[in-house]
């Protein structure tokens, strides 16, 4: 750890940190079998870092789980494995490939997005391991449906979110009681913005997969987005690939996560770039949310994160 929010004197980050740690401890105390969702992306790296702090010097009292679409960047998978090994954490991998093989979902084909399929894989894993709470790195500034979600998001036996039946959270007092078969999602980073995340990564010295920083990559332009060629992304006859200096603002399914042209090579560069950005993270990099006004709300109702 290179520094801390405390020594840097950032009031806003210190409060966000304390709030997140408090939520993590409270949900861990009130539920029977929580799990932390860890994708290797920057938000889940911050979430896991905070969870480690919440129980330090003790061990993390729950496992971490990755919902693997099978279309992940190699850099992200090796980062995930290193992080887990360094802190001697228990990692579970729930695989979308496996869900396809077992016929739980149908394969959208090599070019289709597997983002939506993750909901089924996640719900199956939650049922299999009998988890009753899942921590996620969702932030309210990501999307207008997320902006409506409480710190705790209750899911029925089929994992569905009912936005009209959210539990009030007066004075941030969390009521995490649920009935057998139900589970909840907890979002300790709800109040963080993309800029807060990067500033915190900077002060705390949290390592990230290198694809978050500028590098040369062979890409193809598809519906105004730059996709990395390789893996699930295969050139169509009319398309041509080219090399660009890019980085990723978010890492997810390789088939639908776009890179942005950028020369930001360090955390400070990224912070400067983020502060000046005029387009949201999802708008810049996610093909599947552009489809409908309510894309995220629909996926959440189906059991998405």
């Amino acid at each position: 750890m290179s520094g801390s929010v405390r020594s840097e004197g950032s009031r806003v980050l210190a409060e966000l940190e304390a709030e997140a740690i408090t939520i993590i401890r409270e949900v861990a105390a009130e539920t029977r079998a929580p799990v932390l969702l860890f994708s290797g992306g920057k938000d889940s790296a911050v979430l896991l870092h905070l969870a480690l702090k919440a129980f330090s010097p003790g061990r993390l009292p729950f496992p971490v789980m990755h919902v693997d679409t099978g279309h992940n960047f190699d850099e992200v998978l090796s980062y995930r494995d290193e992080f887990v090994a360094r802190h001697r954490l228990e990692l579970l991998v729930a695989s979308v490939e496996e869900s396809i093989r077992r016929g739980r979902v149908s394969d959208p084909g090599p070019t289709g997005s597997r983002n939506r399929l993750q909901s089924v894989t996640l719900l199956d894993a939650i049922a299999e391991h009998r988890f009753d709470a899942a921590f996620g790195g969702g932030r309210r500034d990501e999307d207008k449906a997320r902006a409506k979600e409480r710190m705790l998001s209750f899911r029925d036996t089929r994992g569905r979110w009912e936005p009209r039946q959210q539990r009030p959270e007066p004075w941030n007092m969390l009521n995490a009681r649920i009935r057998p078969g139900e589970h909840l999602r907890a979002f300790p980073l709800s109040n963080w913005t993309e800029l807060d995340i990067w500033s915190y990564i900077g002060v705390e010295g949290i390592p990230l997969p290198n694809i978050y920083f500028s590098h040369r990559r062979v890409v193809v332009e598809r519906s105004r987005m730059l996709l990395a060629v390789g893996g699930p992304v295969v050139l169509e006859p009319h398309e041509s690939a080219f090399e660009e200096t890019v980085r990723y603002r978010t890492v997810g399914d390789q088939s639908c996560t776009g890179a942005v042209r950028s020369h930001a090579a360090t955390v400070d560069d990224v912070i400067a770039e983020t502060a000046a950005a005029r387009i949201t993270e999802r708008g810049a990099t996610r093909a599947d949310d552009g489809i409908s006004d309510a894309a995220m709300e629909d996926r959440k109702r189906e059991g998405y994160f």
Partner: protein
Amino acid sequence: MSATRTTTRQLRIATAGSVDDGKSTLIGRLLHDTKTIFEDQLDAVIKASRRYGDQEVNLALLTDGLRAEREQGITIDVAYRYFATPRRSFVLADTPGHAQYTRNMVTGASVSDVSLVLVDARHGVVEQTRRHLGIAALLGVRHIVLAVNKMDLVTWSQSSYSAVVDEVEAILGDLHADVTLHPVPVSALQGDNVVDRSPNTPWFAGATILDLLESIEIDESAVHVGARLAVQWTIRAGSDYRGYAGRLTGGPIKVGDEVVVLPAGLRSTIRTLTVSGVAADHASPGEAIAIELRDHVDVGRGDVLVVGNATLSPVVGREIDVDVCWMTDDPAVEGRHLVVKHLTRHVGATITSVGFRLDPTTLQPTPTQSLALNDLGRLSLRLDHAIAADTARHNRSTGHLILIDETSNATAAAATIIAIT
């Protein structure tokens, strides 16, 4: 956007207004004029405005994020928005105005430093405005920014404006609310007095909405009295480390300070401290900490550690009076059994009497047998076991609790502690 690195605290704002008073328009205006709206978000709003048949770009669509909200044109649940100016960063909780969704408003308003209340200048104070003011008083909100909106539709009449301000002042007086009122005449639609001063209100000498939000001082010493740690979790490490973890209210505290464990009354001193998991010699209000004690005393989740000055100790008791906002369909009636969650402790409770209900029109206490969904009123409770609590007037951070329905697990009420014995 350098606000993230400054030492000022983020200001938490909750908006409140009756349907169509122009709340969403005002928020859209604030976000737009502070350049917080991203290009792709604005594109989406322009497209959606066309689809829902609006003539102009409808900035309300920025915050009304749920499908039902867009279709019905109303706000159902709280939407959180984040924006920053070079002077401060803000979280804005946009809360619904419709009576049916009052509990969602309570969620947004309970954690706010400032309530931004909208009134349509043409209609003046309506039932919803009263309810919102009543809730702000119940929740202990310290500052109300009153936006008297749609001034363009009353030809910028100073007397229409003053009539609204006088009425709101009278209501707050009746409620004995301990708040500061900051009134502003605005047109959310045209942007007058939102960010920039309006040429249409030469008679108005006060600050614009944004100026107020940037400059309101939050006096934290007034809201925290005495250092308390409600134990959330016991961290165990090695053979003998026992860290009692929770969020500190009050303080600061330091290694070596005396500790009283309530409700049991055991005593010890602080051996070590961690702040956000890192060893420290002192801790400040609001920090997520863990305390290790010198002595092996019996401490666990739900206990309250009182640090330092014992004269500021909470009261240990079983009989409590609370002012509530009732938030579930099953009414509050005498004899009903519920679960209280106070800080980190759950304890069974019986309603021993329903004191009164605030009449929604007059906000006067009226005798009643029960409280229904969205009612504000007073209850007396008898707890199955004693808790260590403060009145909200004495300690804003520990003077609240929630009531939970035993069968559905729903949060049935938000409650402010008025008395404990």
